[in-house]
């Protein structure tokens, strides 16, 4: 990894009494893919708008490759691509006209412009739709068009706000492949999404946000491991789960027991080593409370929800 491409320090943006972004700080390195995760209203979109110079913070600083993006937004804009959660169709505009305008806006002329339009349309797989009106496109095609527009000018840093929102599984899969191709090109990506499993596949680092704050950041492994000490177990009960839950609540070795939809109980064992964990499990068997225990890894959704509950 190289030097930070983006450095955000104490960024604040309030809308009257609403603290959309309340003093966040983080860094992104070139070529990194980072997922921005948060509940609705946690400040993800506002953060992204601030990073792309589309909004102005009340205070704080944003540096893009050492350039102050707040003082010299025009210098960094050409290097940033922004893909919003939704591309609202423009009337009386075809796909090629739309992309062509942005190619012109980036100063491309003649055959270079034609080649650039073709390049992004081919990359996003919508070349055959070039003569179609934008308002006749499906949701998946619109998102591809939005990505094509974002890629005009070949920006180094791409900001994607819920890029896969509203897409069917097939379109989502195809979109994921496009993102992978961009990663291979060495682009720096900042992606927000509610589908955390997909983000986990696409991104090598995550930022968790809540109420305008960054509450945790790191790789998926770091986040999951650092979420809580102990080991996660899935326990199968003998009969009713109530006696097991009551026992776990009384025991010092166990914490956070949650009954799952399939009847199993998900619980964290706080015992420090393998021997102690084995002892705790044997105690459960001796009480005739469980007939199966399996160790499993906490997934990103569970980690996120767990961290949110801790914060609140």
């Amino acid at each position, binding site marked *: 990894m190289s030097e930070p491409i983006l450095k955000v320090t104490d960024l604040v943006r309030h809308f009257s009494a609403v603290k959309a972004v309340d003093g966040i700080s983080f860094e992104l390195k070139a070529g990194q893919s980072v997922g921005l995760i948060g509940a609705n209203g946690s400040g993800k979109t506002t953060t992204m708008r601030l990073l792309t*110079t589309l909004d102005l913070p009340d205070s704080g600083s944003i540096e893009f490759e050492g350039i102050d993006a707040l003082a010299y937004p025009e210098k960094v804009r050409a290097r940033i691509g*922004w893909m919003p959660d939704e591309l609202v169709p423009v009337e009386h*505009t075809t796909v090629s006209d739309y992309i062509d*305008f942005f190619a012109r*806006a980036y100063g491309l002329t003649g055959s270079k412009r034609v080649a650039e339009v073709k390049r992004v349309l081919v990359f996003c797989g919508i070349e055959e739709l070039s003569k179609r009106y934008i308002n006749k496109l499906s949701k998946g095609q619109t998102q591809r068009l939005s990505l094509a527009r974002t890629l005009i000018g070949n920006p180094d840093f791409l900001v994607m706000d819920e890029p896969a929102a509203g897409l069917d599984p097939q379109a989502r899969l195809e979109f994921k492949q496009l993102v992978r191709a961009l990663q291979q090109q060495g682009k720096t990506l900042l992606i927000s999404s509610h589908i955390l499993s997909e983000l986990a596949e696409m991104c090598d680092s995550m930022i968790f946000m809540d109420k305008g704050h960054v509450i945790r950041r790191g790789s998926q492994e770091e986040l999951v491991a650092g979420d809580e000490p102990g080991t996660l177990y899935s326990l199968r009960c003998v009969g009713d789960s109530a006696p097991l839950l009551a026992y776990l609540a009384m025991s010092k070795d166990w914490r956070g027991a949650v009954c799952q939809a399939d009847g199993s109980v998900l619980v964290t064992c706080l015992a420090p080593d393998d021997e102690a964990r084995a002892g705790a499990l044997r105690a459960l068997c001796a009480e005739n409370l469980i007939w199966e225990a399996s160790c499993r890894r906490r997934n990103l959704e569970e980690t996120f929800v767990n961290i949110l509950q801790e914060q609140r």
Partner: protein
Amino acid sequence: MNKYFSDYLPPALVRDFRRSLRSRGYVLMLLIAVLVAVWVQYDAIAQLPESKSMGGGTTLTMIGVFLFWCIIPHRAGRAVLADCRVKSANYMMLTPLSSRHIVWSTWFSAVVQLLIVGGIGALILWWRQVATPDMPLTEASLFSLTGSLFPGVPFFSWQPVTFTQVWVIYALMLGVGALLCAVFMSLAQMSTFTRLIVICAMATVALSWGMAQITTILDSGRSPADILLAGVSGISLWCRLADAALVLWVLLELARRSYASPAENCSWGLRLWALAPMVLVAALHYAAPEESELMTEQLEFSVAMGLVICLCDALLPTYSLPGHGRRTWPLLPSYLQTPGLGQAAFFLVLVLAANWGVHVWQMQESSVPYLLNKGLSAEWMDGLHSLRLLYALLCALLLTDLLCGSMNANRPTVFAVLLLGLDIVAGFVAPGATQDVYLSSVIPCSEVLLQIKTAEQLTVCSAVSAACCLLMLAGLIFRGRRS
């Protein structure tokens, strides 16, 4: 032709022009209007042996007004509005295109469309001139249909006009059309309510101007062409062109804020740049070798335009920066930021400045700057038509609010209270105003009641005024009950 010819044109112009050409409804409307114009002129020429003069001028003028003043400016406004609504303005901010470039290109696109359509109209006029070089033209008085409102005035009247007058008026219509494109573009950034009241303000001024036109035509018997062309020569023509350029600059600077990034919109640079034309005019004024009344008027006009910009900057939110703390005018304390107050103040300034000005302009036949200098006189109170229009306007707003039910609950009320407050002040300060005038300003119905009681000057306007007053009162009562 080089297949990359369009590379030499501004991107926004190419985009907007393509979009217009792809809009079937828009193209169809232009074509139908042109075809109607051709048909009317052909019909007029075909009847030549029987008729002693050429008719059809009014139709051409009306089609021109429809296309140059309504359709094409509306289209230009919609281009900006669409960018704001679909967030295209956001995407454009990230490109190297400057906000000024986008706005001027969009305006140029509208002007090119004006010139194309205007060129077709000019061809039709030229055809008519070539076909009948010696035949005198006649044109129906623009407002003759409303003559029935005035006792003793014929329903329909014809005015003789020369081809020179027709060409000048045609060019003037195109020029005003270009300005209106900028007006509609500058309105696009405003909220729906603010846009509504500004359009109402413009309608008020236009109606006021129309009524003053009727009065002048009826009093003097002169055609609109005579009035418009009176005293236009030399320096006054240049001054008027400079005024138009100044207004255009200001309007496009306002429209530009829709495409400017938040940093730009918050910057003092943008504000100062918007004031630059005023500084230029002031510098020219002081650089002028000798004192000229016109230059003095222009200086005052530029100061007035500067005030309008400051007011807009303080009161109008932009799409790119809704309610940002850095942009709010620090002189306006939070307790004064009542919903509707800003829009109402903006509306009042707009209506009063323009309405007084146009009224006085019509009376004095002077340049635009002159009207602002002399506008603050009591002459506008004559006949109270301005007040009637204000009441009608307020009534329309309240009615719209009642029907839509989607506006902020406080805005129309604040608006109404401010308007009535203004009337009361106007009643006090108007020199020579009678008790009746004062009463009318406080209680609009009193004027009508007085007229009915004395049976004097009872016209259709009185009935309209009465209906407006009643509706306004009903609206206020309804709103009071609801809140």
